[in-house]
């Protein structure tokens, strides 16, 4: 059987890839996708812990995360469309007017 550490390493790698995407990519839709990758990295570690502890808690919480992720994707994409309509751009650096 594959040990827990392997799952956790994969999970960490996925999380790192996701956060790198959030910080480095210049497209809002890609950033949203990167956020989804980070959420799924966390889901993976939950499920892995659940499996190794012999409980269903990890799987239950994963369903919650997926629900939130679906809602977040819907709201996020709606915002992206609204932002694109105002600025004709998807570069996050174009939207910095919300400050002091």
């Amino acid at each position, binding site marked *: 059987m594959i040990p827990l550490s392997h799952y956790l390493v994969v999970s960490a790698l996925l999380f790192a890839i996701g956060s790198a995407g959030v910080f480095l990519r210049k497209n809002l839709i890609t950033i949203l996708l990167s956020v989804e990758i980070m959420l799924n990295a966390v889901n993976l570690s939950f499920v892995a812990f659940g499996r190794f502890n012999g409980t269903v808690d990890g799987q239950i919480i994963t369903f919650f995360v997926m629900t939130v992720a679906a809602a977040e994707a819907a709201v996020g994409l709606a915002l992206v469309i609204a932002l694109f309509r105002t600025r004709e751009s998807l570069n996050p*650096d174009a*939207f910095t007017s919300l*400050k*002091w």
Partner: protein
Amino acid sequence: MTSLIPFIPLLPFAGFVVNATMGKRLPKSVSGGLASLVMVLSFLISAYLVWQLAQLAPEQRVLSNTIYRWIASGEFTLDVTFLIDPLSAVMLLVITGIGSLIHIYSTAYMHDEVDSEFARYFSYLNLFAAFMLVLVLGSSFPVLFVGWEGVGLCSYLLIGFWFKKKSAADAGKKAFVVNRIGDYAFLIGMFALFAMFGTLEVRGIATKVAAMPVETGFGLLSIATLLLFIGATGKSAQIPLYVWLPDAMEGPTPVSALIHAATMVTAGVYMIGRNAVLFSHTPETLQIVAVVGAATALMAGTIGLVQNDIKRVLAYSTVSQLGLMFLAMGVGAFGAGIFHLYTHAFFKACLFLGSGAVIHALHGEQDIRNMGGLKKYLPVTYWTFVIGSLALAGVPLLAGFFSKDELLFETFAEGHQILWAVGALASLLTAVYMGRLVFLTFHGERRHDAPAAADAHGHAAHDAHGHGGHGHGAPHDAPPAMAMALIVLAIGSVLAGYIGVPAGLGGHNELGAWLAPSFAAPVEAGAVAEAGAARAEAAAEGEAEEHGADEIALERTLMGVSSAIAVGGLLVAWFIWIQRREIAAQMARSFAPLHKLLLNKYYVDEIYDATVVTPIQVVSREGLWRGVDVGVIDGAVNGVAALIDAGSMALRRLQTGSVRAYAGSLFIGVVLMLGYYLWR
């Protein structure tokens, strides 16, 4: 019987309360009538109590009533006690008696004011009387000080009564500030006495000080009494704090008569008399008192010689006479000083009220150069004014003669020949300027014509008096209420001196004998009989000694000199201002610098302005206002605000608006926190 004592000040105070709260709605006859009535009642109570006092043996003449315990702190207690002894008896009668007359006079004089102003005037006047009575009745320094400050306040209010006129408001302020300087010294003197004796009761201090030797040199006791005397110079208008009194003439004339001639300004003299035992133990201070008194008498007399405002002449005359009183106090002739205070109250009140009648008749004209020839229009005013002037000048057999003569005689007899000469010179000046005042005001040709000129003065209200019926040309004499007060005071000016006929004229100084117990240390109850007997013996001896042939000869000689001075001074005035009018102008020309110096009052106001007022203003403006207030206090407050502002300006740069920057800082924060928990 003693339970009546509190009512003496309480009645005028009640009058004040009524007039101050309801005066606006009362008609003039009620507010003025009430104010006068309470004064008359107060006078009657005082007279009754003084009569009771006179029934007692001389050593026991003290009536006191403790109202309540004011301060009780550990060992120290202080009661509010009102005390009538021979000295305060004299003051009581002067204040309530002359005060009543002036209240009655005022009902006519102030009649042109509107109801609310009229009531305001009488409420102040009543309040003044109440405080003045507290001053003379108080048996301890703090109670005396309450009255002392109270009369200062009322003086301020009354000088500035016509406060819409800037000069009146300024004069009130000046009086208040100058008095405050004296009060400050007085307060410190009081503290010094408390530190030395542990009590503030005047009689307690007198008992303790009587057991001490007379202070030689200038020690602590002398400093304390000197401080008290500085307080007295403020209240009683002596050098160097006399400058407020001439300006105080901006107030209504009856106020000048009551406060700035007859009562409040005598508070300093009274205070020294009240503490006679204390002052007797500090000869150095007494020397200063005498010299200051003589110098003030001379200086004010010379200024009075050239002033042109009828009230200012009288004001400088008051300063001069107060100087003579201090001279008497300073040479230890306390009885003579109080005697002059008492007679002076009559004729100076008479003169001020007379000048008020003149001003009233001329619709506010105060310049004697514009008067003249008023004798036939104002007979009552004229005759009472003449009697007052003669009494003030010291013409024989009038009140001023007896008191001034006694005062100068005592000065000479105590061995102060130079001070006597200064006092005699001041008396000569008195006779000359009073002669000038009478002759310029009432004699000669009439130089006053248009009543309309009055509009320029603050007295404009008098124009609304309805003079149409009288015809505008002829000034009318004093109305009955004013005439009554003038006549009573004129009679007083003639007769008041006869309670102190000197031995040189075959009399006996009743007033001096009456006052004597007040100037000696209080005697314990048990020792009264013994002391009384001893005193009677001593008095008998003293009498024989005092009225030795030499003494009487000296007294008669000096009496002759002062009579000659008085009559001579009046004759000089008559010659200059009636016989040869051109001499006056000629003298003013040939002594132009001197004349100018006197006319400008020795430039004392200007000197004070330059040396005291301006530096204080500059320091206050540049140092305290712009330096301390704006610089330090405002600087601290604004500095804190500026610091926060600058910090916020720096910190707001952190908020970039970039989503990724926020996400980055969030990420770094979480990593740091986790790292801390993992590796701690």
